[in-house]
């Protein structure tokens, strides 16, 4: 539509409002006030339900969740990383992409594209027709956006947490994965384990598997089909086949970004040297 036509139309709009319009106060203000009262009422209602159905104990959740969880503890490892609900769609997006090739698409690519498209809306759609039936592209596009945001949020909200009850699976892991044998091989060849006797293999694997099950590893990683896939973290069932070596595993666990720049995995540097070694032997034995 030409610029002059647009200006004409807007001039006509201004004239119509002036001649036929109603006063903002009190007519529009009345509707706004009713709506605002509803909003404040809903907020107070949510706050009350949240408070009166929950308890003082950390994690004592009511209908709308707990008042707080345990105090932040940088050295604890059994956490579940979860953002507020309106970031669930981003969070879930990161499950769809796999490290390392395409994670950047989920963290940066898609959100940036979405933002640019949103900013560009007035410059893409330059028509003047406002009736929905005559704007099929806009209607279909908005339905698609609403559906995908809705589904991603829902999936993020109901995503199963991996770690619960994982310890029961440890004997199965060790047997199926032949982990003790794997660990003997690691001890025989890995320079970081010089001086460790092969007899310790069973002990180290068991300790590592327990740490693995108790820490948050399974919130992000899959292992022999258990756990969940978050933030594009790899399946660790055959981690030993990558030839990382025990020292590399220890460094990675202590500070993931030192070995893997841009890693989303949190640091497990609060574990002791021995624990890190056991965990690393467990990981390397999985082949």
């Amino acid at each position, binding site marked *: 539509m030409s610029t002059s036509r647009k200006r004409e139309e807007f*001039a006509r709009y*201004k004239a119509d409002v002036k001649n036929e319009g109603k006063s903002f106060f009190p007519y529009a203000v009345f509707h706004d006030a009713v*709506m605002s009262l509803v909003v404040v009422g809903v907020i107070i209602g949510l*706050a009350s339900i949240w408070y009166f159905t929950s308890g003082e104990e950390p994690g004592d959740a009511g209908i709308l969740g707990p008042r707080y969880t345990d105090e932040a503890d940088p050295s604890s490892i059994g956490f579940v990383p979860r953002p507020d609900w309106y970031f669930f769609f981003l969070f879930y997006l*990161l499950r769809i992409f796999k490290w390392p090739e395409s994670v950047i698409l989920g963290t940066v690519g898609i959100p940036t594209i979405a933002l640019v498209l949103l900013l560009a809306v*007035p410059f893409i759609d330059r028509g003047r027709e406002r009736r929905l039936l005559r704007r099929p592209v806009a209607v279909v596009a*908005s339905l698609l956006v609403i559906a995908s945001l809705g589904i991603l949020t829902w999936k993020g909200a109901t995503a199963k947490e991996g770690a619960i009850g994982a310890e029961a699976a440890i004997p199965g892991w060790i047997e199926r994965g032949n982990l003790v044998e794997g660990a003997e091989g690691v001890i025989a060849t890995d320079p970081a384990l010089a001086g460790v006797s092969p007899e310790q293999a069973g002990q180290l694997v068991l300790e590592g598997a327990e740490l693995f099950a108790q820490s948050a590893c399974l919130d992000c990683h899959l292992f022999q089909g258990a756990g969940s896939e978050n933030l594009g973290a790899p399946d660790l069932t055959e981690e030993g086949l990558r030839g990382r070596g025990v020292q590399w595993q220890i460094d990675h666990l202590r500070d993931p970004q030192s070995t893997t720049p841009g890693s989303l995995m949190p640091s497990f540097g609060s574990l002791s040297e021995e624990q890190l070694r056991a965990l690393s032997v467990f990981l390397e034995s999985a082949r």
Partner: protein
Amino acid sequence: MAARARSARQQQIEQLLLAPINWIEERSGLVSATKRFLFRKVPRDVSWAQTLGSATLTAFLVQLATGVILAMYYRPDPATAYASIQHITNDLTWGWLVRGMHRWGASVFIILMFLHLGRVFLFGAYRYPRELNWLIGVLILVLSLLEGFTGYLLPWDQTSYWATVVGININGTAPILGPFIADFLKGGAEIGTETLARFYSLHMLLIPGGLIALIGLHLYLVTRLGVVSPPWSKEAAGRERDEVETRKRGLVEPRPRGNANRNGSDQA
């Protein structure tokens, strides 16, 4: 005689009451500006869907008011933050209400903002001459999400701590600026005292300041340009007319468009 005396006194009282208002008006023009704002015309067919903007504004004001109160009792330090949150929630009179409203108001605010965005989209209200206001709206949306992200850390519980660890890592994956932003947010090697202080300052000074400025600009443009009629309206302001109707109106109300553009910028 008596009646006239009373009315003289009445006039005096009236003048006394009006004096401060006139004083302000003479020095600022604020009184007439407020009148122009309140008694400006809007299309006669505005719908309930168009209350979503002011509903969003109300939710934002709730966040400001409750946030100010929370800031009086919250201690932004890893050693004390968690205890102060517990104190506010469990011990302080009405503390649970203030914190609960702030916490749930944030969600309501975000939902309302998306609904408002949706109604602007479905009404095609982002078109000329309102494109700039759409752009400002998107900026407001991004800043609001950042406000949510920075606020989430403040209770300093496990949920907020680890969500922030991962959130900062995600920030770090962005090309070029990503690592710098991540380092800046952390403020040190570990997420700790510096991080919390930074998040607190961003959450209660910088981002709200930006939001207030942008919302002010947004509302200024809304009053300057006016809101559109619903697309389904038969009597939409600015509708196309056939010749006859236009001429007839021209006879009844001479020069209906004269002066109408006082507020518009688009007179070629």
